């Protein structure tokens, strides 16, 4: 099959941008990944720890299929995939065209440090005279005006903070590669005209700007300005608005008519700001209010200069756009600033605290507070700062802050070796995600984090000690005061800067708070086909949801590219077959990068060459000036093509940067990737050891020795490298989907729409699952619309075979080829072959016997209530009092998880009843209202509608009694501190969701279920829909409790993950893969137990251990446990390892 080809643009390179880009790239599309910042990683570049593991683990997102297409490298540092082109400091400026054929233009900000030339030596930092607070470390340390935006990023060119830079030019003078262009002469050509009737104004502006190196001219009136403009071209005009005769606005109009490209800034007195705003509508690009500080003016002129320099590039054609612009955070110093952020040094935000926690921050991981470096002993977290606050128009929940605070508290406690007291002040602890509730319980019971319900009203700083006195009221109304060393504000979200502009440009709508709005039942689709939303761009999400949604967006993007013909990218290069060199002795070409003349200045490189040539495997040794540059690499390729070695060793720096290049080189000259090896010479380290500029003979000998040892270790690996190409696994390009609810149907359609056959197995007679009884969602969208549309598309799809009243009896096989036996009540038993499996077996409302459920017909579950409402069997007009009880049998052992949708459902039902009969008294007994995200506004609506919410503690649940057919509910009311008794006409129990994922079914496909019976994902955050066994995925309620839109997102994500396998006829394994020498194998099966991926099986017929190379990820655990060295890892055989060790100590 010809590979599907096309191109997509991913805007924003945070976690969701990376996920979407990787998904599309793994599917074979070309991806342009842009970010307006000079680094990738978004907010995660500042977060070192993520719950629930309290570690990182981002690398688990790296490709598992055809994994050599990407460097297997720390993903927080850098992303290197051959199909992904990363463009940093770049913005999207226009989008035209139609789905499948968008013309996009990008604009890259001019970079004063050329990222290609910068080698990151850091000489510039030594001479930079400016020190400013380092925003990466939340201002706890300082940095220079020339700095690394993310210290650990790779590649990592320096950037200049133009606001702080004094343009002294010292860095430019010391830069060894001439990468820096900061001094004035570069903007001499940017001509500015200043128009003002006041001499003092125009002269001072002229002076300020000339000091900055701009060319400036002045005019005293409109006509004079026009005259000057007609004689010479200007890039920028600054004009006063109020001038005698021709005013600024008229001048603007006339100037724009004749010189449309000129950029105009209006200068105005405060009184005429409105005029200035009007002027912007007719073409002015900005305005300044007089009087202004020189710095403000200069900064604005610099900004215009940069925009002018960043000339838009030629349009690029892409099939689809995935917008992953992320979100911004609330700045607590805005507005009333109740908590004194920015005033009291020991009040920090949750993001600031991340940097305090980070061991990479400069306190060496010691937990101290900013004001006096006192070790932290008592810290408070305040939740909902800038969220759930109607006063500041933030009637939404920011989704992640509760878990974020618990995680910070736990990591802080661990760091302080438990000598730290942590208190979290909250309204509702929103632990609605999979495993979150247990995490919270552990934090409370095992680690002693204190959870204080109630709101904090004030903070006062104790002047003497710097401690913070926190005044709060708990929900019984008791006023309390407590001292803390530090307070962490869990800041809520705000739309990312530029969201509105981007939305307008592409024509998508925003919600009332300015976040992007997705279509009903979808988290990713927008009103514009081909323009998708990923991650937090439509409202803050945690990593798990962002990753799921990004994959779902990638799927939707891929579908658009696919259906519109998609062949925009170059045809995949056909390459020469790999040479068979298995019978040849090693002929290694060693290529050493001398890093300019750094190495040759020290000694004659031939000394090193002679040493290396003592090894008979070394054929030739060459020295190249800069292999990292395009020209340097071309030289290298020429040498290889000329001399045709059968192994290549490259000595350079940052080996990870070479993975794409070496793969291309290998294809060009017919060498398998394992025959080309790059070692890190650590040349800069060698040099830094020298005591002065002219090294002694001994020092030089030591360096030569060290370099030849490093190269020798590389040689040792290469000489014994296996020249056979990596194995491939044939893929049976069909899918099986188990379960015909909305998730299963969505997944089946998504795969079939990409041209692959799908079998869908459903146990019931009808497709539709829970949507057959669920009528509408909280927002009022009718589920029937989506159900009918999906069912219709599915049933008429030529590539989908639906098997209703069927079930899976058993399955055998692995990724690439499964054999599954199906029992169909009508057609009997048959076997299907398929390459991948998606489990969408769903879930259902839990049954209960609590609260006297079986004692009265008027005590019902949420589902029963919905059905009654839908069937018109319930008459709200006849109801006086309704009690709803949340968390029935859930959020406590053994079902200690939140079902995520029950609060949402109660709000929906309560509002529905109240709409029909506003006089009904509705009481909702709850533990924490899980109105996460934008659901919060419905919680507000319900309270406004008069629904009464009463919190209860799990130790003291409400009691429901039935006497003579009438129902009483008794409970403690914590606010009044008394027992209450309610007569109820109806009691509704929120029993939550249980999965229907039978254990034997899971086992048949080799996947495990978690303690609650849900699908156990390979990794909750980074691989949320994969199983640890490749080729099996899960979605919908079998995966975790989710609402409809979220379930559909998991289905799309699962099908995207499946498609990256299905799209290969033969799936290539990585170059580092396990092998087995059957003659040495004693069938002890230790390797089978050791393999974390289930890639090894014992074939009883053949009496052999079989490896599926596509499932093997090359960790080498099997090779180490093998008592006979029958199991080996390509590239790391005993012979290689022992030789490498020998070389290291030569």
């Amino acid at each position, binding site marked *: 099959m010809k590979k599907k080809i096309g191109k997509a643009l991913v805007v924003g390179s945070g976690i969701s941008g990376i996920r979407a880009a990787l998904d599309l790239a793994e599917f074979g599309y070309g991806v342009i990944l842009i970010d307006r910042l000079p680094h990738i990683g978004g907010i995660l570049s500042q977060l*070192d720890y993520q719950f629930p593991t309290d570690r990182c683990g981002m690398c688990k997102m790296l490709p598992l299929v055809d994994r050599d297409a990407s460097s*297997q490298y720390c993903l927080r540092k850098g992303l290197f995939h051959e199909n992904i082109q990363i463009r940093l400091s770049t913005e999207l400026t226009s989008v035209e065209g139609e789905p499948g054929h968008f013309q996009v233009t990008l604009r890259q900000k001019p970079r004063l440090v050329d990222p290609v030339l910068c080698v990151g030596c*850091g000489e510039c930092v030594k001479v930079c005279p400016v020190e400013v607070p380092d925003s990466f470390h939340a201002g706890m340390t300082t940095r220079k005006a020339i700095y690394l935006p993310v210290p650990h990023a790779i590649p990592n060119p320096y950037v200049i903070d133009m606001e702080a830079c004094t343009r002294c030019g010292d860095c430019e003078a010391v830069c060894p590669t001439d990468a820096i262009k900061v001094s004035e002469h570069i903007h001499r050509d940017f001509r500015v005209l200043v128009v003002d009737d006041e001499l003092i104004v125009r002269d001072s502006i002229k002076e300020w700007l000339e000091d900055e190196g701009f060319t400036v001219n002045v005019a005293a009136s409109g006509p004079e300005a026009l005259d000057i403009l007609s004689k010479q071209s200007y890039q920028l005009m600054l004009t006063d608005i109020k001038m005698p005769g021709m005013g600024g606005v008229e001048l603007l109009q006339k100037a724009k008519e004749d010189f449309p490209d000129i950029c105009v800034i209006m200068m105005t007195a405060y009184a005429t700001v409105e005029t200035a705003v009007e002027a912007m509508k007719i073409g002015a690009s900005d305005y300044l209010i007089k009087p202004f500080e020189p710095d403000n003016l200069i900064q604005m002129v610099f900004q215009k200069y940069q925009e002018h320099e960043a000339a838009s590039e030629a349009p690029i054609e892409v099939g689809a756009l995935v917008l992953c612009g992320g979100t911004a955070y609330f700045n607590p110093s805005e507005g009333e600033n109740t908590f004194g952020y920015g005033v009291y040094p020991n009040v920090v935000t949750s993001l600031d605290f991340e940097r305090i926690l980070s*061991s990479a921050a400069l306190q060496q991981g010691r937990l101290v507070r900013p004001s006096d470096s006192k070790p932290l002993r008592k810290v408070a977290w305040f939740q909902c700062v800038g969220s759930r606050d109607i006063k500041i128009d933030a009637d939404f929940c920011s989704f992640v802050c509760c878990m974020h605070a618990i995680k910070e508290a736990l990591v802080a406690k661990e760091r302080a070796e438990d000598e730290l007291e942590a208190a979290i002040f909250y309204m509702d602890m929103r632990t609605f995600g999979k495993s979150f509730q247990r995490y919270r319980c552990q934090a409370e019971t095992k680690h002693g984090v204190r959870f204080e319900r109630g709101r904090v009203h004030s903070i006062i700083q104790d002047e003497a000690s710097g401690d913070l006195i926190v005044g709060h009221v708990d929900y019984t109304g008791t006023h309390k005061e407590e001292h803390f060393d530090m307070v962490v504000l869990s800041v809520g979200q705000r739309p990312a800067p530029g969201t509105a502009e981007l939305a307008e440009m592409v024509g998508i709508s925003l919600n009332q708070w300015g976040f992007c709005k997705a279509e009903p039942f979808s988290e990713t689709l927008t009103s514009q086909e081909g323009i998708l939303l990923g991650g937090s761009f439509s409202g803050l999400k945690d990593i798990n949801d962002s990753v799921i949604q990004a994959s779902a967006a990638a799927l939707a993007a891929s579908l658009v590219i696919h259906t519109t013909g998609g062949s925009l990218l170059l045809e995949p290069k056909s390459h020469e077959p790999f040479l068979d060199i298995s019978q040849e002795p090693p002929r290694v070409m060693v290529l050493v990068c001398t890093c300019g003349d750094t190495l040759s200045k020290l000694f004659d490189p031939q000394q090193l060459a002679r040493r290396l040539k003592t090894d008979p495997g070394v054929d030739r040794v060459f020295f190249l000036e800069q292999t990292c540059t395009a020209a340097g690499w071309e030289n290298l390729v020429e040498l290889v093509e000329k001399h045709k070695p059968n192994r290549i060793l490259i000595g350079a720096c940052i080996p990870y940067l070479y993975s794409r290049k070496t793969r291309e080189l290998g294809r060009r000259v017919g060498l398998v990737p394992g025959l080309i090896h790059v070692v890190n010479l650590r040349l800069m380290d060698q040099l*830094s050891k020298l005591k002065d500029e002219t090294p002694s003979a001994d020092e030089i000998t030591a360096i030569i020795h060290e370099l030849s040892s490093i190269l020798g*270790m590389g040689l040792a690996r290469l000489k014994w490298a296996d020249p056979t190409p990596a194995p491939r696994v044939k893929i049976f390009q069909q899918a099986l989907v188990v379960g015909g609810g909305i998730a299963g149907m969505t997944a089946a359609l998504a795969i079939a729409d990409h041209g692959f056959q799908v079998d869908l197995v459903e146990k019931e007679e009808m497709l539709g699952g829970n949507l057959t009884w669920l009528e509408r969602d909280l927002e009022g969208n009718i589920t029937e619309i989506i159900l009918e549309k999906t069912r219709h598309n599915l049933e008429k799809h030529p590539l989908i075979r639906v098997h209703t009243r069927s079930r899976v009896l058993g399955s055998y096989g692995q990724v690439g080829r499964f054999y599954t036996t199906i029992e169909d009540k009508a057609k009997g038993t048959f076997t299907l072959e398929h390459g991948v499996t998606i489990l969408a077996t769903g879930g259902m409302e839990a049954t209960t016997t609590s609260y006297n459920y079986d004692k009265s017909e008027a005590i019902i579950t949420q589902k029963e209530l919905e059905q009654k409402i839908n069937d018109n069997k319930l008459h709200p007009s006849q109801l006086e009092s309704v009690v709803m009880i949340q968390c029935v049998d859930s959020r406590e052992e053994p079902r200690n998880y939140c079902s995520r949708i029950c609060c949402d459902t109660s709000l929906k039902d309560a509002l529905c009843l109240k709409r029909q009969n506003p006089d009904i008294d509705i009481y909702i007994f709850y533990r924490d209202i899980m109105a996460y995200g934008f659901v919060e506004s419905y919680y507000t609506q319900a309270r406004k509608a008069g629904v009464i919410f009463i919190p209860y503690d799990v130790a003291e649940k409400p009691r429901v009694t039935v006497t003579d057919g009438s129902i009483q509910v008794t409970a403690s009311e914590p606010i009044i501190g008394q027992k209450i008794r309610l007569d109820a006409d109806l009691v509704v129990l929120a029993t939550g969701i249980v999965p229907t994922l039978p254990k034997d079914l899971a086992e048949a496909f080799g996947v495990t279920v978690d303690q609650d019976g849900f699908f156990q994902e390979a990794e909750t955050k980074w691989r949320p829909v994969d199983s640890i066994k490749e080729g099996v995925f899960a979605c919908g309620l079998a995966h975790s409790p989710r609402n409809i839109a979220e379930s559909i997102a998991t289905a799309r994500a699962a099908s995207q993950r499946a498609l990256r396998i299905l799209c290969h006829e033969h799936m290539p394994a990585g170059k580092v893969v396990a092998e087995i020498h059957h003659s040495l194998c004693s069938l002890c099966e230790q390797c089978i137990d*050791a393999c974390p991926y289930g890639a090894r099986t014992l074939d009883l017929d053949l009496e052999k251990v079989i490896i599926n190379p596509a499932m093997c990820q*090359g960790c080498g*655990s099997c090779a180490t446990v093998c008592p006979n060295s029958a199991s080996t890892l390509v590239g790391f055989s005993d012979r290689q390892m022992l030789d490498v060790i020998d070389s*290291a100590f030569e």
Partner: protein
Amino acid sequence: MRLQYPSDIKVIIIPCTGKIDILHILHAFEKGADGVYVVGCMEGDCHYTNGNLRARSRIKHIQKILDTIGIGGERAQMYNLSSNDGPRFAEIAVEMDEKIRKLGPNPIKLAQNTAA
């Protein structure tokens, strides 16, 4: 970040610490290494699920062997860190370097030198 760490440390890259073999480590001591340390992912966060836990128990085992044969178990160590935590990598290198310098040269090397 261009962090400095002691130059007498040779880095041998392996895909996962679960790949370390007792034989390889002993071979390094035989060849004259004064100390060997293994740096893996944080516990609970192994890229390959649990290789670092296997490595930990192997290092414990090697320490026993080294103690038994008179080389000293302290010369083999296991560390865990995140791959983006360069400063900690440098810190570990310094810590190990200091520890080994205190212990002095590997007795095998001394014996070999005397024999020669």
